[in-house]
């Protein structure tokens, strides 16, 4: 197994963890079962309000240890989009 494959497998395991963690945050806030939250549906469709979306950004910061834009969730309104944006931020903060 090449080094790069191992790396991307770790990344994808991380990503699964992160996805589960994110979905759990949102599900708790909305009092919904996590299984009912689909990664490709805008979270506002489930009733997630804009103010809570701001505090999710801070929770992401505390969980991952790097700064993210407070409006990250406004610009990336689905779980899928949010994970992609976090990936980019992570690369940027790692590169910096």
């Amino acid at each position, binding site marked *: 197994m090449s080094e790069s494959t191992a790396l991307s497998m770790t990344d994808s395991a991380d990503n699964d963890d992160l996805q589960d963690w994110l979905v759990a*945050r949102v599900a*708790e*806030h*909305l*009092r919904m079962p996590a299984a009912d939250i689909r990664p490709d549906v*805008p979270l*506002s*469709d489930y009733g997630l*309000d*804009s*103010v*809570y*979306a*701001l*505090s999710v*950004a*801070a*929770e992401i*910061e*505390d969980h991952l240890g790097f700064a993210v834009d*407070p*409006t990250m*969730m*406004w*610009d990336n*309104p689905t779980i899928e989009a949010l994970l992609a944006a976090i990936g980019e931020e992570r690369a940027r903060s790692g590169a910096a």
Partner: protein
Amino acid sequence: MTTALATTAGPARLHALESALGDPFADDNPLGLRAVLEADERGEMFEAGEQALHEYGLGAEFVPTAFGGRLDRLDHLVEIMRSVYRRDPCLGLGYGASSFIAGVNLWTAGDEEQCRHAAELLCSGRRVAVAYHELAHGNDMAGTEFTALPGPAGLVLNGRKEIITNVRRAEALVVFARTAQRPGSRSHSQLYVDKSRLPGGHLTHLPRYRTSGMRGVQLGGIEFRDCPLPESAVLGTMGHGLENALRSFPVTRTTLVSMFTGVVDSALRTTLSHVRGRRLYGRTAADLPHIRSVLAAAYSDLLTADCFATVATRALHLLPAQTPIYALAVKFFVSKTLMDVMNQLSAVLGAHFYLREGPAAGFQKLLRDIQPAGFGHAARAACQVSLLPQLPLLARRSWLGETGAPAELFRPGADLPAFDFRQLVISAAGRESLSTSLAAGLAAMPNGTGPAYTALRAHGEHFAGELVDLAEECVSLSPAELSVGAGSHTYDLTTRYVKILVAAACFETWRHARGTDAAFLADPAWAAAALHRLRTPLGTPRPSLPGHLEQPLWDELLDRCARSKGLGMLPRPLAGSHG
């Protein structure tokens, strides 16, 4: 008109305005309360007052100096507007505040050309209305139905805006509109609409709304039907309306409610004058111990509210990134405190607060006019709901810290760095340093003696301990308890937090006044009184003050009224010979 005052400092402009408007309590003053009341009885704006404000050039106070206006310090703007509010809140809102809110949107998000255009209107005494509100959605801005969707030549406006101050008389509007159909937080924009450039036939004005207070203010509505508007009318980035609004709110929420302290200033003077002139049971009502207690407590509450508002206004210059939190707290606390004071004073006036004639007739108008402090621009409950989800984050990031805010925050009237609208942020991200200033201030508390000093220390320690308790409770709050569906116990956590902020503001303002020539602020009595009243458990009536705290407040109230000095943190000289 505007040039003569352009380079004058705030206190000098305040003096110029006070001189132009004269003693509000003099019956023969054509700009006094008597004339204000007559206009109110007719449900009209006070025309002579509007003319006087026009001559003073009040609109220029809302325009940053960079665009040719006089706005360089928000604390000075508040003081100047208090001079208007203490005479006629309708003028305050109707001539002033609504154009200021519109302006803040522009200075925060508009481009150079939009800002220049609005600045010219305001500096020449014309108006810009701010059209956010739709009756069906209240403070739920994301629910906005008014649309500005892409059309053949830019945008097409459709929908209604309701209960908008001056919408008919304004030359331009800032409209909050849905610019994308999808739900979410990037689907709205502010539009700067110059009425004179709209094609005819697409715009209807709705009839005026009648109200129980602020009766002179022209609240109207507007309806657009397929009205074309160039895309260049959007303020800032298309779709960033909610972000722009949240960035503007720290300024508007803090300063607008702070202006209302002028109303209570007049109400307190009116009540004091009444009880000193009224003879009951062989002495004046002012000699009755209970009456004194109520008035001294009312004065204490006014000072407390003003202290917190002043600190939060200074924070806009000094700690702008923290102000999204303070603004919510100010709107929530100051509005309620001011309204409570008005109700306490109405009980002292008895039947006279109800009369629409006689020397105390102004009071019933002030009581009606102050009500929008609690719901106008943002409702108190909406501020609580916005604070709620931030509590766990605040607990984690701020409340367990040990550093306090810089000393400049607590020096009313002292110099401030320039204010930059572009530095406003959407969220404090759980970071503020006012609450922890209390423990830091206690640790640095200078030695002292006497009952007021001892009381202040004890109350200060109580609130510092309260912050530790609150942090423990909030760190582990479940996310489900942080939304609009939260239980009332959770809402109470926001109230407890806000009281700690207020206590910190008062304690630190006292501590930093020591050694200055502000003798009253340097005495611990007012701050001890403030914390004493704040300590009341939720839902119980506030206790009256112990005699050793009541007496200095009563003396100060009498002295300032006799010498026509402002009743806030700063005893500014005001027009009048009222005693």
